[in-house]
């Protein structure tokens, strides 16, 4: 972790007009200023990354505790104690909210976007570095508020990450009079942080590209992060409105969602899911972008259909605005709307499948190098496909009458979310580690971590599909209360899933040790150890403040010119003049 405080002037042939941009006094900054008050996009990226990693520990601990309760009901969970029904609700709420809002989004979008975008477009920073710092600080504030909610009277909010009223609106129902508004406030502030960050990202991409870099020379991961940011910006508005309304219902007794006062609880569901559905694509697209970068580099082939991937991503994003009520099929919405949403939901599987086909076609005939990042990228494709196809069952509203609120849904979204948030994050961190630290992670331990994650992952969620199909309802803290759900074998499946989870969590220690040990003591890596083309690999590892000490690059070609017939080398960096 390495950005030095001495600013280097990135004046290259391309920037005639920036005559005085870096004219200022140079000084060594103290530790606090350099790492906690920085406006450098790379440091801010690390801030988001490490905060996200920390929050993953919280989300992981929460799931450990409540799964142990399910597997061994009533027994004291080692490291936690007895899980009461109220505890259970708080734990599942914490797990869901944290993993989506405080792990997936900060790691995939904020950390990677911040770190990579200026580097990949050949810029020296984001266009609004101070706004960038403010965005992180707002995000950190949301983390602090959320963590405070665990310690207040009544404890953390337990109304599920979907926070439906009247449970979420009335303290006499949710029993968390402080926890509920604190949770909601944390979410709202997190949204504000990402809105500001999104504006920064989009403006940077549009305006600060290197000379010669046309929009279709921009690497896919940057496109995806930008499209995701726009999708977020366009969908979060109604939920921000809804959050204000719910906060008033919780704290001052308005009746926005109270039928007795002229409100409607279904309105909250619509406000939530209108955002909630595009949100899953907000996190999916960056993960797919990461996979694209990795598979091109490690199959030494250009992306099979670059423009198609971009158009499809935009199309997916657009279509994602028309499917939201499939989360509400049995909430009492008008059945005629359910028909419409069924059709749109089934349609949306098409563009995503098509992107997968492009990836498979990219791999086909490639010169495959099975490095750790490549393993993660391949696993993403396989596991996400399983998640995607199981979504088709749920998208058919008739079938959903049975499946809704069962573990089938849960297994479906974990087969999609886990690849997105964790496989995608591990792929990204292992791939860009040499750039970030100038050192390699240990390959052997990387592969141990990989198998130690993937194999248990499947042993967690396949049992949950089976249990869901047999009727296991979600959000039940003790199945022994339901004789129908204690048929032979069912509790065994629950125990199998829980023990597999424990194994999976244990293997994450391998990752953490490998990551932090290698950051300080790993084998040294040069600027471009993977022999890739995109601009971040043409900067030093790690890049100094200003990114490109030899001058900001000009761009001459697209990002995936691998194995070009006229070249000796099988790669052709974007900024190579020849």
């Amino acid at each position: 972790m390495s950005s030095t405080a001495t600013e280097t002037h990135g004046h290259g042939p391309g920037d005639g007009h920036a005559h005085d941009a870096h004219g200022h006094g140079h000084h060594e900054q103290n530790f606090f200023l350099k790492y906690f008050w920085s406006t450098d996009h790379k440091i801010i990226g690390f801030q988001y990354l490490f905060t996200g990693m920390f929050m993953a520990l919280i989300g992981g601990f929460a799931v450990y505790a409540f799964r142990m309760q399910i597997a061994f009901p009533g027994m004291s969970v080692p490291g936690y104690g007895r899980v009461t029904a109220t505890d259970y609700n708080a734990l599942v709420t914490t797990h869901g909210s944290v993993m989506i809002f405080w792990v997936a989004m900060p790691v995939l979008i904020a950390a990677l976007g911040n770190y990579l975008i200026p580097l990949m477009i050949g810029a020296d920073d984001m266009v609004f570095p101070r706004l960038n710092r403010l965005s992180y600080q707002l995000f950190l504030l949301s983390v602090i508020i959320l963590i405070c909610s665990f310690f207040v009277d009544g404890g953390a909010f337990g109304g599920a990450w979907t926070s439906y009223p009247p449970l979420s609106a009335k303290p006499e129902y949710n029993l968390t009079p402080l926890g509920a508004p604190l949770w909601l406030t944390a979410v709202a502030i997190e949204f504000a942080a990402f809105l500001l960050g999104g504006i920064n990202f989009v403006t940077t991409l549009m305006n600060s590209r290197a000379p010669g870099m046309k929009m279709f020379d921009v690497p896919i991961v940057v496109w995806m992060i930008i499209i995701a940011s726009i999708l977020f910006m366009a969908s979060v508005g109604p939920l921000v409105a809804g959050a204000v309304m719910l906060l008033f219902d919780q704290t001052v007794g308005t009746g926005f969602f109270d039928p007795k006062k002229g409100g409607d609880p279904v309105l909250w569901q619509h406000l939530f899911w209108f955002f909630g559905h595009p949100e899953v694509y907000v996190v999916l697209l960056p993960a797919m972008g990461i996979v694209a970068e990795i598979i091109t580099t490690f199959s030494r082939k250009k992306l099979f259909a670059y423009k198609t991937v971009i158009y499809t991503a935009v199309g997916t994003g657009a279509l994602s605005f028309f499917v939201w009520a499939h989360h509400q099929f049995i909430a009492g919405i008008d059945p005629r709307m359910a028909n419409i949403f069924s059709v749109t939901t089934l349609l949306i599987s098409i563009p995503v499948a098509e992107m997968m086909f492009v990836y498979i076609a990219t791999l086909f005939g490639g010169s495959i190098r099975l490095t750790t990042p490549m393993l993660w990228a391949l696993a993403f494709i396989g596991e996400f496909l399983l998640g995607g196809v199981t979504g088709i069952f749920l998208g058919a509203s008739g079938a959903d009458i049975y499946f809704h609120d069962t573990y089938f849904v849960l297994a479906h979204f974990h087969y999609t979310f886990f690849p997105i948030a964790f496989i995608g994050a591990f792929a990204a961190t292992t791939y860009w580690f040499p750039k970030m630290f100038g050192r390699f992670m240990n390959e052997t331990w990387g592969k141990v971590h990989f198998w130690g994650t993937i194999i248990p992952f499947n042993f967690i969620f396949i049992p949950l599909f089976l249990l869901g199909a047999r009727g296991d309802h979600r959000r039940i803290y003790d199945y022994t209360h339901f004789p129908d759900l204690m048929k032979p074998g069912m509790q065994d499946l629950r125990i199998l899933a829980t023990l597999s989870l424990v194994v999976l969590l244990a293997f994450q220690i391998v990752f953490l040790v490998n990551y932090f040990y290698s950051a300080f003591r790993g084998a040294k890596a040069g600027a471009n150890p993977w022999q890739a083309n995109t601009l971040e690999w043409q900067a030093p590892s790690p890049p100094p403040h200003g990114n490109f000490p030899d001058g900001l690059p000009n761009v001459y070609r697209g990002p995936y010119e691998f194995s070009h017939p006229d070249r000796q080398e099988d790669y052709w960096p974007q900024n190579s003049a020849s």
Partner: protein
Amino acid sequence: MSDSSTPAAAAHDAHGAHHTNYVKIWAILLGLLVVSVVGPMLGHPVLTMITAFGIAFVKAFLVIKYFMHLTVEKKYIGFLLLTMLAIMLVFVAGVAPDVMKHEGQRWTNNAAIDAVEKGLKEGGGHHGEHPAEAPRAEPH
């Protein structure tokens, strides 16, 4: 960025050469405001719709075109904003059948129907200074 040699500032100077009379536009806006206040006072529902809401769109258009200069901005900015509006329409279209209407195919929202009935019955006699109460639906 205060020198004119950047392409951005150059684009600026180019369209600063419009000599829109901003005061004139403002006067038109005020005139429209007057119409939009007077129109509803005449009591016709259709006239109210046109003067109050129709004029709102006209005023917004004038501000957008003459004050924000959106019509001489790059085209995709306008498309971006229109897309956001379209997304809002999708939202209302998808939610209205559940929230605006109080019954549909095999469902009714009894609380809301009762509230409307009760409120309309009471609504006739309550004018002036007493704080009006929220109509309460009887729990079924």
